[in-house]
C-alpha cells in the first residue's frame, strides 16, 4: 500500500538553508547539500527546497545547487520559488529536480499551471498554496509570502483555488496553513479536511508540526498523502526514524529505509 510521506522542507535563501517563524526572522541552518544528505540518511521520503527570495524578488532559481543536490540524493526532491515559465521549470528539472512547485506566479497567471502540465506532465507540477483564515471565517490565499513586507491577501477563497488548479493540471497540492506555521501546535486539521474534500490529487499538509502526535493526527483525521515540516526536524525535537516507528505503531503505513 502507498506510504504516507514524511517530507522535510528546506527554505533556501542565497544558497543557504534558513528557517523563520511565521514566515519571518530567518536564521541560517547550514549548507544545502549537507542538510539534503542528512535528511536522506534520516529516512525522509522526499525533500522540498523552497527558494524564499527568488519569488518575491523576481529572481530565478540558481540551478547550480539543484544539480549539486541531484548528484548526491537518491530520493525525490521538489524545487519551489522563482519558477515563472516553462523555461524556468525546464532548467530546474534538467538540473535534476523531480518536481517543481509554483505558488505566487500561478496566482498571477493561472495559465502557467496548464503550460507546465502540458510540457512535463501533471506528475511534475506541484501547486503550493499559502492560506490564512480571515475574520469573516473564510480561508483565502496569500501571495508573496516569502517576504513579510510584500505578503498580500487575495480575494480568492482557498477552496476555489484548490478546485481551479486541479482543473488546470496540478498533480499535487501543498497546503501551507499560515496560521499554524512555525508555532508547533499541530497541523490545521479543520482546514486540511475541508481541502481534502475537494482535492483529488495528492495533498501535502504544511505548517504547524511540533510533535509526532501531530503527524499521526493529520494522517488519521485529514487523510493527507504527506506531511511536510521544517523546524521540528532542523531542531531535532522530532527525529524522523523515531517518528516513523511511532506512526507505524499508530497503524499508519510509512516507508522504512532498508540499507
Amino acid at each position: 500500500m502507498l506510504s504516507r510521506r514524511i517530507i522535510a522542507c528546506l527554505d533556501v535563501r542565497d544558497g543557504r538553508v534558513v528557517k523563520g517563524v511565521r514566515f519571518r526572522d530567518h536564521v541560517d541552518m547550514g549548507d544545502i547539500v549537507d542538510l539534503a544528505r542528512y535528511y536522506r540518511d534520516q529516512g525522509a521520503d522526499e525533500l522540498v527546497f523552497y527558494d524564499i527570495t527568488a519569488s518575491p524578488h523576481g529572481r530565478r532559481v540558481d540551478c547550480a545547487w539543484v544539480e549539486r543536490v541531484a548528484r548526491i540524493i537518491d530520493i525525490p526532491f521538489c524545487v519551489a520559488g522563482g519558477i515563472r515559465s516553462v523555461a524556468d521549470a525546464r532548467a530546474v528539472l534538467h538540473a535534476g529536480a523531480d518536481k517543481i512547485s509554483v505558488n505566487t506566479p500561478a496566482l498571477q497567471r493561472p495559465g502557467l499551471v496548464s503550460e507546465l502540465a502540458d510540457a512535463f506532465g501533471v506528475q511534475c507540477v506541484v501547486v503550493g498554496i499559502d492560506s490564512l483564515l480571515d475574520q469573516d471565517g473564510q480561508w483565502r490565499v496569500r501571495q508573496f509570502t516569502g517576504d513579510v513586507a510584500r505578503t498580500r491577501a487575495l480575494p480568492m477563497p482557498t477552496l476555489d483555488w484548490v478546485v481551479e488548479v486541479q482543473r488546470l493540471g496540478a498533480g499535487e497540492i501543498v497546503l501551507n496553513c499560515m496560521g499554524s506555521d512555525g508555532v508547533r501546535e499541530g497541523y490545521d486539521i479543520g482546514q486540511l479536511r475541508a481541502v481534502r474534500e475537494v482535492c483529488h490529487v495528492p495533498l501535502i499538509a504544511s505548517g504547524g508540526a511540533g510533535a509526532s502526535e501531530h503527524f499521526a493526527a493529520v494522517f488519521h483525521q485529514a487523510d493527507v498523502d504527506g506531511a511536510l515540516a521544517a523546524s521540528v526536524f532542523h531542531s531535532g525535537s522530532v527525529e524522523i526514524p523515531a517518528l516513523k516507528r511511532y506512526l507505524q505503531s499508530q497503524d499508519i503505513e510509512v516507508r522504512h529505509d532498508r540499507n
Partner: protein
Amino acid sequence: MSKVVLIDAGGANLGSVRYALERLGAQVQVSSRAEDIASAERVILPGVGAAAGGMARLHELGLVEVLRDLRQPLLGICLGMQLLYDSSEEGEVECLGLIPGRITKLAPGSLARSPAAGSAPDTARRSRVPHMGWNRLQIRREDPLLAGIDDGAQVYFVHSYAAPLGNATLATSENGQEFSAVVRSGNRHGVQFHPERSAAIGARLLANFLSMSS
C-alpha cells in the same frame, strides 16, 4: 567498469538517472545516436512525459527499429517501460511492441491492503491519480533483475498510466488496481517506478541491471 548508454529522448529525468548510475561506478554515455545505441553493452531508456511525445521523439531520432533490434540488455524506466509495450491509451499511440499489452490510465479507487504490510489497516483510503509516492513491490517471479530485493520492498512511483499484468510481469504494485511494476521479456526489462529515486532498493535494481550482459 560497467558500461551503459543512456538514451537522450528529451526526458526530464535524464540527469537523475545518469547521477544514479555514476554513484554505482558505471561508465555512462548519454546519446541519441543510433550507432552508439546499437553497439552499446547495455541500454537504458528513461522517460518522463507523455507516451505520444516520447514515441514521436524516438521516430524523429530514427531509434524505433534500433530498439526493436537490440539483443543487449535494455531497461525502460517509467515512461521508458511503457514505451516497450504494444500501445498506450495516453495519446492513442502505437509503441515499440517489444512486450505484448496496452498501457491504460489508472482509475481512482480504493487502496488494497498489501499482505506484506502487516498489522491493522491504515484509515480508509482512496487511491489518487497520479500515483505518487513510495509503494510496495509484490514479487511474482524470481529474476536476476530483482536479486537482493525482498517482497514488500518500497520504491518511489510517479505515474498516471500503467501496464497490465502478463507473462513478462516480475513484480506488481497497486493503486486502486494492480499493475506491472517490474517486467522482463528476454533482454527487455522495464520498471514503472524510479530506481534513481528509490534509495537503496533502486540502487540495487540498477546494479543488478549493470551486471547483465548479452
